[in-house]
Each structure stands twice: as structure tokens, then as C-alpha cells.
């Protein structure tokens, strides 16, 4: 008796997505995402004919720094966090499957929920800015943020029942404050890479000084995702399950 990993991962994804994408959570996060859209709309109107990058800069400062990390934290930490909290992780854990499959299923579930939830307000925002380069840049930056933060917060949700608190502290203190103090510290923060992607693709140099190249951005994002999955798998192996 054996089932291919793809089948087991898909079976777990089908179970995890309804558990994390509750109606209340999705509506709240979509509504929250409309806030920068409304702000961009009014700023763009007030700044008619002015600097094209005002809205993109707004996105950089609000969306990439607060909105996207927060939404990713809420959904990604819930994937394994909810299973642990409800003590239903055992129904995945005590099966003859590799723990990495549980990690991958959780990570992919959070991506599948987050991409549409974050894309809707992001596309609206890009539409207001009204430039194809901006739209692609914004979506690319959002995708990088979803992947990098998603892997990190999926692991955090497994490790601690206070993932929201620790995640918020990380977003505010590290990403928001310490990461901006020096270039070296900035390289250790995810927002450095999301803003670099936005700056490169949208051709908006005002977003960040000395942006990383796209190759570096992609390599760092993939490494972060892989590290998150490895850590989650390792933790699942060492975990005491209720």
C-alpha cells in the first residue's frame, strides 16, 4: 500500500485550505487590503500629472511593509498552527508519509489562499497607478513576499502558539525598524528583496537605494522558502504530538 506524494499532498491541501480560508478571515483581509487602494486613488488624484511613483511608493511603504506580511502571517501561521491548537495534527502526523509532505502541503495551501487574497487589492492598486510595468512589479513583489514570509510564518505557526504575537514583533521590529538601520541589516530582511523587485520591475529607483538584482532576489526567495520547509520538516520530526 503506497500513494504517491503528490496525491497525499493534494489530499492534505484540500483539507487545510477550508480550515484557514474562513469567510471572516478572507473578507477582513480583503477589506484591509482595500485601504492602500483607496489611499492610492486619492493620492493619485491629488498628485495628477505629478510623480508617477507616488502610488508605487505608497505601496512600498504600506503594502510591502505592513499589509502583505500581516496577511501572510495570519494565513500561513494558521496552517499548522490551527492543527496543533485543535490537536488534529495527529491525523496527518501518524500516517506513513514523509513529514516533508506535511510541510509542503501547509506551505502550498497558504500560497493558494494568499495569492488571490493579496492579488485582488494589489491589482486594483496597480490599475490605479495605471502602468503595466508597475502592475507586474507590484505583483512580482507581492509574490516574493508571499513565498518568503509564507515559509517563515508556516514554520512559526508550528513552533509557537503565539505565532501572531511573535510574527508581529518580527514584522514591526526587524522588518520595519532594525532592517532599515544599515545596508547589512537590510540584507537580512525580506522587505529588502520585495522592494528591490518592485524597484527593478517597475523601474522606480525612489523605492529603495541600491536595489538587489533580480537574480539575487529570486535566489534569496527560493532559499528562504527551502529553509522554511526544511525547518518545518525538522520540527515536525522532533515534535511531541497531542
Amino acid at each position: 500500500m503506497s500513494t504517491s506524494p503528490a496525491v497525499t499532498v493534494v489530499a492534505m491541501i484540500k483539507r487545510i485550505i477550508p480550515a484557514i480560508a474562513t469567510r471572516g478571515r478572507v473578507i477582513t483581509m480583503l477589506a484591509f487590503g482595500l485601504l492602500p487602494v483607496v489611499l492610492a486613488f486619492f493620492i493619485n488624484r491629488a498628485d495628477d500629472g505629478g510623480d508617477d511613483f507616488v502610488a508605487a511608493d505608497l505601496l512600498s511603504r504600506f503594502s510591502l511593509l505592513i499589509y502583505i506580511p500581516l496577511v501572510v502571517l495570519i494565513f500561513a501561521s494558521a496552517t499548522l498552527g490551527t492543527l496543533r491548537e485543535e490537536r488534529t495534527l495527529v491525523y496527518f502526523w501518524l500516517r506513513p508519509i514523509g513529514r516533508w509532505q506535511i510541510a509542503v502541503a501547509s506551505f502550498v495551501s497558504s500560497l493558494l489562499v494568499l495569492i488571490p487574497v493579496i492579488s485582488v487589492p494589489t491589482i486594483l492598486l496597480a490599475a490605479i497607478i495605471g502602468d503595466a510595468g508597475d502592475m507586474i512589479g507590484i505583483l512580482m513583489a507581492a509574490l516574493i513576499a508571499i513565498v518568503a514570509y509564507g515559509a517563515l510564518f508556516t514554520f512559526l505557526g508550528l513552533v509557537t502558539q503565539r505565532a501572531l504575537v511573535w510574527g508581529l514583533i518580527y514584522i514591526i521590529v526587524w522588518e520595519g525598524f532594525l532592517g532599515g538601520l544599515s545596508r547589512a541589516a537590510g540584507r537580512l530582511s525580506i522587505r529588502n528583496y520585495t522592494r528591490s523587485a518592485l524597484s527593478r520591475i517597475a523601474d522606480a529607483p525612489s523605492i529603495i537605494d541600491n536595489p538587489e538584482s533580480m537574480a539575487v532576489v529570486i535566489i534569496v526567495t527560493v532559499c528562504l522558502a527551502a529553509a522554511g520547509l526544511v525547518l518545518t520538516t525538522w520540527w515536525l520530526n522532533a515534535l511531541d504530538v497531542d
Partner: protein
Amino acid sequence: MVVVDRISKWFDDVVAVSDVSFTLGPGVTALLGPNGAGKSTTLRMIAGLTSPSQGAIQVLGDNPRQSAEVRGRIGLVSQQEQLFSEQRAVEFVQLAATLNGVGDAEAAARSALQTVELDPDDLRTISTYSKGMRQRVKVAQALVHKPALLLMDEPLTGLDPRQRLKMTALIQQLGAQGICVVVSSHVLEEVERLGSSVLVIAQGRLAAQGDFHAIRQLMENRPHRIRIRTTDARALASALLTYSGIHGVEVVDESELLVDTNDVALFRKRVAPTARYVDAQLYEVQPLDDDLESVFKYLVGR
């Protein structure tokens, strides 16, 4: 099938299981003990959900925590209430079948649900189910892949009397098929109905083991303390002391005495005729330590 070798488990300063060893083969074994005795922790260690702090466990020749193959041959009915409540029962059991690598997962799920007398076509979600129905869903997901070792943590909890009988019959049937079934319970009568071999766990230690009748005998033969309220405590005390099975009598006051005996059956037989003989009326004859907790304490202290 299961070899438990001197396992201990502690959580910080609290010792949950202490130096427990036993082996299990095919058939039903009951893990009997009061709440908090270490039964669930022992089951969790056998399932590989947590490691022993000391000692070793082998299930089907391997470490259950590390071997995926062994995990695939274990079925667990855990004690917690929560299931994937927004799923239908058949979806939940089918998920278990898929993750266990069962070929036709849907057919296996339907069959497992029918085994526990639940309707696979029920359109309701598990969240609408009664406690007893949820319990049966848990059993179905544990059976769906035909495990060699079935661990059931208080499986009769929440079932009505009719369902208890059915579940007991199912457990016996599974044991008769050669499956190693371990059932934890804190209710002596439940274990008696299973007619199985018994491991008594109390205060984290293995207090006794054997077939149920041997354990029952052990429990009957322990010292009992009985309080008697009567019209003439002193006369009754003097008369009772002449019997060999009674090894102590304490007169509390004119109307109350405490009797220590290790032959409670003999005491029951003789107390009324003796009271009649000394012309004393009996108002109350009450065992003071007949609760299961006292029995377990005695077994641990032997």
C-alpha cells in the same frame, strides 16, 4: 507485536510513567487505571507520538516514531474530541485512507463507517454529530487501513449503552482476528466486559498484569475497611473479632465501629448473623475504600 522496555516519561518535574515494561501480542489488552495514571502517555509513546524519556519501545520490530512503515500499521483512536469538523464523516475517513496508502480510499472509508454503524452517505458534517457518533468516526478512521496494532484511548466514552455493547463486540472481534488491540479505560466494568488481559497502571507504574479474573481476585483480597453503624458497637466488635478474616476492629463510639478485613466475602456473609447473635441492630454497613482509586493505590503499594 509491542515490546515496552523499562520506559519512563517525565514532563519537567512531573513523572507521568515510571519504569514500565510489558510485551503485547495479538488479541485485546486493556490498560486499566484511574485518570492521570499514565495510560494516555503510555499509548502515545507506543504510537510514537512522543518519545520515552528513558527506555525503549518497539512496535512490529521497529521504532514507531521513526519508521513510516510501522506508522502505516498503527491505528489510533485518540482521546481528544476534535476532528476535522467541517468535513463529512466519509471525507474524513477517506482522507485517512488516502494518507495511509489504501488503494480504493473511498470504498475503504465507506466500509469502515459501516463497520461502526455510521451512514457513509450522511450529508451532515462531523460538527453536527453527537459525541458518540464522533467517537465512532474516530474508530472508523483508525480501522480504515486494517492496522496490525490498534490503540484506543477510552473508546467507550460518550457511547450510549447499546453502542457500548456494539463497540465492545467490535473490539473483541478485532482481537479475535489477530489484531493487537490496546484499550485504555478507567472503568473496571468496561474492562470486565472486554474479557481481555489487563495491565493495571497507577501513579505511572505498572501495578499489576494478568487476565481480568486474576486482577479481580487480587482486588478482592486486598484489606478492606468497613464502617458499621449499630445499636451496640462494643458487643458487635467483640463478636466480629473472633473471626479469622477480620484482623482489626476500632470502636469509634457506642454506635459506630470500623472493621478491617482482607476477606470481604466472609465478612459480608457473617456480619448480619453476628449482629443478630449479640442482639444489635445494623443501621449501616459501608465500605470506606471501595472506590477504584483506593484499589489502585493498594496495587501500587503491594
